[in-house]
């Protein structure tokens, strides 16, 4: 008897949670406001994406907010230099949860063509967690829209509760990351081990 009721209650709660989750994800994914944040070449393509031909506004994402406090999405569009990296991380930290990062273009993912440079950070994911990577140098505006839709799909698949819930719903996980400081030769620290667990060189171990 009691079990029955509990079951009903539980299932009702389940339905409630599911609806809530759907609503939440629907709201989040359809209202992703990017931070006005251009770094280099890719920024021009990012601007082009918001312009008439490609019109990112169709997805409700043309509300580029200049202040990180009101932004949801940071499109790291271009080369992150070591001189710029602390600012990028600080801006990321200053965004309220839930926040997403798209690494747009080769430079943002890995340093790209400029990775040989002494002042170039070899990928922003050394310091902040990246949700979607877009290869290309620069990626076409369509590629950014595709990435945007990939992000929407990713948001859609997130759960409100449970162990696999995203970072911003989990109290134990941090929402700000260490901001590197300028050292005498390089940034200190060189990467954030929380998000960049020093991968083994696959190239060599595999070969």
């Amino acid at each position, binding site marked *: 008897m009691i079990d029955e009721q509990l079951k009903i209650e539980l299932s009702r709660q389940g339905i409630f949670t599911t609806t809530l989750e759907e609503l939440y994800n629907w*709201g989040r994914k359809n209202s992703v406001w990017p931070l006005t944040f251009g770094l280099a070449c890719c920024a021009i393509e990012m601007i082009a994406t918001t312009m008439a031909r490609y*019109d990112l506004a*169709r997805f409700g994402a043309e509300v580029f907010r200049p*202040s990180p406090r009101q932004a949801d999405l940071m499109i790291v569009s271009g080369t992150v230099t070591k001189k710029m990296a602390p600012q990028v991380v600080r801006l990321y930290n200053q965004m*309220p*949860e839930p926040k997403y990062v798209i690494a747009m273009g080769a430079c943002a993912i890995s340093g790209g063509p400029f990775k040989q440079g002494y002042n170039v950070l070899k990928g922003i994911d050394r310091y902040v967690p990246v949700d979607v990577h877009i290869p290309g140098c620069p990626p076409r505006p369509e590629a950014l829209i595709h990435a945007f839709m990939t992000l929407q799909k990713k948001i859609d698949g997130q759960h409100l509760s449970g162990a696999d819930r995203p970072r911003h719903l989990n109290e134990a996980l941090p*929402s700000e990351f260490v901001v590197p400081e300028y050292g005498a030769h390089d940034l200190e620290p060189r990467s954030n081990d929380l998000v960049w667990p020093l991968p083994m060189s696959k190239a060599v171990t595999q070969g």
Partner: protein
Amino acid sequence: MTETIDQIFVILKHWLVGHVPTAVEPIVSELLSVVPIILLFPLLFALITVMERKGLGRIQNRYGPNRVGPCGILQPIADGIKTLTKENIVPHSADKVVHLLAPLLLVMATFLGYAVLPVGRNMVAANMDAGVLFFFAVGSMTELSVFMAGWSSRNKYSLLGAMRAIAQMISYEVPLILSSVTVIMAAGTLSTVSIVEQQSGYTGIFPHWFVFTPWGFAGFVLFMIAATAESNRSPFDLPEGESELIAGYYTEYSGFKFALFFLAEYLGMMSISGMAITLFLGGWAAPLSFLTWIPSYLWFFGKLFFFIAGFIWIRGTLPRLRMDQLMNFAWKFMLPMALINLVTAGVWRFMPTGILRWLVCSAMVVAPYVLLGRGFMLGKRLEKRTYRFAD
């Protein structure tokens, strides 16, 4: 029949009030006039944001939001859910209490203005003898809340934005009030309902709106310019001018507090447009005598729609003024024009009806406009230039 449709909401309210105990009757009655305001205008705000984004899109050769719900109509709901569930950040150095109070006060002040707006025949929440004054008094409270927002954030851009906002709002408040004084002079009342009634007649098919007089037209234009400045809309959006001050006074606001600022901006825009309609465009009256069968509230909201469209249109076209130009414009163009317009309205009353009155009053408005306008341009030697070419 048209009468019934026109008064349907009034009748409905009376019918509902008739069903409650007499003890709570006044409360319920008032609630029934207040709650629609609280529900309707935010809903309108949501619609306007979509309209603005789509309208701007069309101006800019693109679609605008069209994928969330049918034609993107659900976009504001998604935005609402998003902002509601967004993390709330209050900077450590901020003055936390004031930081919280500022958006609340702002929303409250903008909402209060609606109390005196007659949105249809017999449809006004509070018909007060000093209604227009109430509107301005409440409007002046927004300045304080904007200042609170900027100051409490302890952010340089916010502070600059707040300073700009106050300087701008106080500068344009004077022309705003002065330009509406002409209407009050003609109507002889401060009550919004009476002002609308004063404009209710028709000559032939044309209405007696105050905007169809020289001083009324000038007053209307001045009022709208000042209203644009008061509601911080482009080209007077300096306080939040994002290319200069990031997001101005609400740089440090996140989550729903930020949404409240957004809401307040649009609510302010709507309420001041509503006031312009009431003062100059005959309120809920139909523009042509044979159109009176259309319910009055539809006329009001139709006019409101045109005002909002105008705001959007202007926003899609004009670059922003600079601070000193903005202030100069207020004090050296708007204020003299408003004062002259005041005198014109006086002259209008004391002159006999006829074509001469029209000519004299038009001249009294146009001449200073041309002079001041030219002085404004020539003082800076603004001109289209010619260029030389070298081979």
